């Protein structure tokens, strides 16, 4: 019998800053990450990659490589049973609709389309031998013209990367009468913005080991955000899906970089062919030039407003660089299009977005998945507009923020609470007093930005997540859930939710996760969906158990179930804690009556019909997280260097399951956003990578990131467990525009192309004619 959902009043575990068991294991050094795992007779793999951006493969000769002592096998495309990927994108169960799906290739066939494209695989007894074997592979290329700029690639007479059209996706927003609205606007602001390739740079390289177990099942133990990829692997090998098992590891950072297939097809192929375990771990340089990046965007934005600051019109054109293969580009573009209005109500909207193939590095998922680029443009526009109107930027935004009940640019009704004004005030207030410049040539400035980001996958995917909870005789419990843990404490959240509802002490709840044949599938750890989906699934299962526990305990204690609560292994009367009974006793009583106290539940996200037209309409996402960030910078007018001296991020997360983990997400997201704004750019010159290690691709260090303050607001109005929303991606969205707005405040230059490197700021200052 299902438990009627009654909102819990008192929390003993959820909402507390409890220490996690996974964190304890990590600092003890006892967690076995993907590359830490070895097996007997294990082989080591390496990938042979293209050194051309656009070329035919005239010939490839692997004879010398095969003959090297210690090399066991070399594989090329002709050895792959199904070299073309079936699903255009990962984990998808519904058709994409309009979008042209260009298949991904496991290994290049007769042509390479980007520098770094995988062509062959080597497996050897020793990683050094495998590396030496790569050098012995002889390849003859014939260069063919490539295209490296997405705007160029849209034209008819440019080289085509696949098929006969480089435009692989086009989305639209249409609302109202845009021409009329602009005619009637008092103020119009129009600008072009540009963003760069960003690299995930998760500290743990992509890695995994594959082997065939004694049941004949191909096992992959791999750092992945998506264990459902076992289906893809089965298809590539031409074997049954039931014969592939993915065991995900605790991941050393992902950010979307471990969402598409990484090492899985390669270790699967090599292990299947050799019959031996095979390990593949990417080198850092290989990760830089061979793995996907965040989409660079070119954006033209035009806003119209009344003289008292009411937004009346917004028109935008977005062009994203899909690189050499589609992967998730069309979905990222969809996210950008939906989020392009910013968290504002705008009655007249016209947006056209395009994703275009080039011979650059392919682009795909990266934290925020398309919402971050448009925030750079939109929040800069709002700042510019405010100054045109001689209005306080805070006031202008507050006047136009979405409210509960408003409809977004797709006509989706916002049904959660919207605490944008509160987050804006909190963030700006927390900056405190303006710092004094540290020298006469330093200028201090402040800026802020508001943002929104969906949580949960697109509704038309009919997303689900399952979890199993079972009580042990001694009152301890096991939770089984497929959700992978990226390092953000996804698994620990499930532990806290289960412990809260079933009354077991936190350390007696064991969570076994991320095994496609042992744990119920919970879906991807992407799209800020982990807590929302798997948290709700665990909650459903644990509530069902809770119902049975309280029912039996009420008989044993002589109290109504509504007057009972549980915590720390005891069931007790809420009004009289002395009337109590050990949880274990209740469990034993229930089990002895033939109720195994094991529950499997599936949580279903709000669903919608598939997108069938280019115009995006209706409910696209389950819900959105709203927040604001503020920054203070000090600009060195002699060198152009921007030092961020203070940062604040304020978000309504609905309910913080563990506040210190929520803060960790906000702070980490902001640091990554700082890198995006000022330091990070992966550069290619006609498709040839220019910076392929961490000295030339600059990541923020502890000296680049200031003290960050994270502020949590809890409206309780989210669709996640206990009213929670998501925070993983929202945390990164507002940082770059907040910093850009602060730079303007400091030195009066508007940077519209990121990263705002010292060179860029310096030349902007020079152009403006002012150096001190």
């Amino acid at each position, binding site marked *: 019998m299902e438990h009627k959902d009654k909102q819990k009043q008192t929390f003993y575990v959820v909402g507390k*800053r409890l*220490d*996690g068991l*996974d*964190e*304890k294991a*990590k*600092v*003890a*050094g*006892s*967690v*076995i*990450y993907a*590359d*830490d795992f070895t097996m007997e007779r294990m082989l080591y793999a390496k990938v042979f990659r293209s050194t051309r951006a656009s070329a035919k493969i005239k010939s490839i000769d692997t004879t010398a490589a095969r003959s090297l*002592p*210690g090399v066991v096998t070399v594989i090329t495309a002709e050895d792959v049973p199904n070299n073309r990927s079936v699903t255009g994108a990962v984990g998808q169960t519904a058709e994409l609709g309009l979008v042209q799906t260009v298949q991904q290739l496991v290994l290049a066939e007769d042509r390479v389309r980007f520098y770094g494209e995988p062509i062959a695989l080597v497996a050897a*007894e*020793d990683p050094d*031998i495998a590396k030496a074997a790569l050098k012995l592979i002889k390849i003859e290329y014939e260069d063919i013209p490539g295209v490296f700029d997405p705007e160029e690639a849209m034209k008819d007479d440019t080289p085509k990367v696949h098929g006969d059209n480089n435009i692989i996706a086009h989305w639209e927003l249409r609302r109202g009468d845009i021409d009329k609205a602009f005619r009637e606007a008092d103020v119009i602001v129009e600008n072009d913005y540009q963003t760069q390739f960003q690299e*995930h*740079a*998760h*500290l*743990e*390289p992509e890695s995994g080991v594959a082997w065939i177990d004694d049941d004949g099942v191909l096992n992959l133990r791999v750092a992945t955000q998506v264990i459902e990829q076992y289906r893809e692997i089965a298809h590539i090998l031409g074997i049954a899906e039931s014969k592939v098992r993915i065991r995900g590891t*605790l*991941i*050393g*950072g992902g*950010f979307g970089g471990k969402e598409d297939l990484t090492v899985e097809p390669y270790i699967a192929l090599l292990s299947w062919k050799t019959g031996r375990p095979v390990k593949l*771990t990417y*080198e*850092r340089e290989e990760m830089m030039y061979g793995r996907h990046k965040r989409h660079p965007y070119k954006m033209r934005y035009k806003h119209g407003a009344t003289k008292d600051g009411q937004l009346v019109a917004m028109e935008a054109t977005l062009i994203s660089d899909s690189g050499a293969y589609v992967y998730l580009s069309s979905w990222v573009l969809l996210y950008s299009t939906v989020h392009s209005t910013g968290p504002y109500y705008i009655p007249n909207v016209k947006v056209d977005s395009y994703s275009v193939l080039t011979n650059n590095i392919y682009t795909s998922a990266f934290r925020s998945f398309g919402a971050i680029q448009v925030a750079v443009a939109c929040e800069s526009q709002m700042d510019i507009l405010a100054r045109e109107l001689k209005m306080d930027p805070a006031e202008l935004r507050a006047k136009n923020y979405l409210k509960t009940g408003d409809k977004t640019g797709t006509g989706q009704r916002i049904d959660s609470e919207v605490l944008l004004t509160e987050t804006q005030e909190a963030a700006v207030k927390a900056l405190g007093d303006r710092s004094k410049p540290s020298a006469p040539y330093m200028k201090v400035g402040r800026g802020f930005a508001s943002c929104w980001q969906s949580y949960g996958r697109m509704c038309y995917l009919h997303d689900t997540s399952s979890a199993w909870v079972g009580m042990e005789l001694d009152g301890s419990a096991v939770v089984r859930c497929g959700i992978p843990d*990226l*390092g*953000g*404490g996804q698994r620990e959240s499930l532990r806290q939710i289960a412990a809260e509802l079933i009354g077991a002490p936190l350390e007696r709840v064991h969570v076994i996760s991320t095994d496609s044949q042992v744990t119920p599938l919970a879906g991807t750890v992407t799209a800020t969906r982990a807590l929302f989906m798997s948290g709700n699934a665990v909650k459903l299962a644990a509530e069902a158990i809770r119902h049975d526990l309280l029912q039996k305990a009420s008989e044993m204690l002589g109290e109504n179930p509504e007057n009972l609560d549980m915590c720390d292994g005891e069931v007790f009367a809420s009004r009289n804690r002395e009337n109590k009974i050990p949880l274990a006793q209740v469990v034993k009583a229930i089990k002895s009556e033939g109720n195994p106290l094991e529950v499997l539940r599936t949580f279903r996200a709000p669903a919608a019909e598939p997108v069938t037209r280019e115009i995006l309409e209706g409910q696209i996402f389950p819900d959105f997280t709203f927040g604001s960030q503020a920054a203070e910078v000090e600009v060195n007018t002699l060198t152009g260097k921007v030092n961020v001296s203070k940062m604040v991020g304020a978000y309504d997360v609905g309910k913080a399951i563990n506040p*210190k*983990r929520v*803060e*960790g997400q906000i*702070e*980490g*997201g*902001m*640091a*990554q956003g700082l890198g995006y704004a000022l330091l990070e750019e992966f550069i290619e010159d006609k498709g040839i990578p220019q910076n392929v*290690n*961490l*000295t030339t691709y600059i*990541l923020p*260090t*502890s*000296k680049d*990131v200031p*003290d*960050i303050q*994270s502020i949590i607001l809890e409206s309780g109005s989210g669709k996640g467990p206990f009213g929670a929303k998501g925070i993983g991606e929202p945390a990164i969205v507002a940082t770059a525009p907040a910093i850009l707005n602060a730079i303007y405040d400091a030195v009066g230059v508007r940077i519209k192309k990121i990263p705002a490197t010292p060179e860029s700021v310096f030349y902007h200052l020079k152009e403006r004619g002012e150096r001190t």
Partner: protein
Amino acid sequence: MAERSEMREVKIKVNDEWVTGLVKSSTTLLRFLRDNGFTEVKKGCDEGDCGACTVLLDGKAITSCLILALQADGKEVTTIKKTGDQLLETLKEAFVKYEACQCGFCSPGTIITARWLLNENPRPNREEIRDALSGNLCRCTGYQKIVDAIEHVSET
């Protein structure tokens, strides 16, 4: 496989345990440690840029990917699994309490750097902590809570 004549024997003390092995002259200390089961020492870049492989070599924090195993012959290496070091244990507890550890991949290196810092400078201010940490990249935490954790330990 390398010729036997190219291999040399090394003997390195790792966390109170003498470990011997045959290495090439080009084998890094990082590779030696991981091949001998000390997988708590992480490989993030293998070229000295990220700090994930940081260990103490005779008490000094170094990136083990830039040291050859032969250079460490006869010396003492400390990883986060070293027992009996109270300050190290306190740091680990603080990292958990202050949520300075998210994915945990940078933690073995970062905690060792912190251990070395507190040896050199028992009461560092936040700027000095950030300075010492600048060779340990973290992509998850934004460094805030790592600095908080180390500051807390230094104050107690």
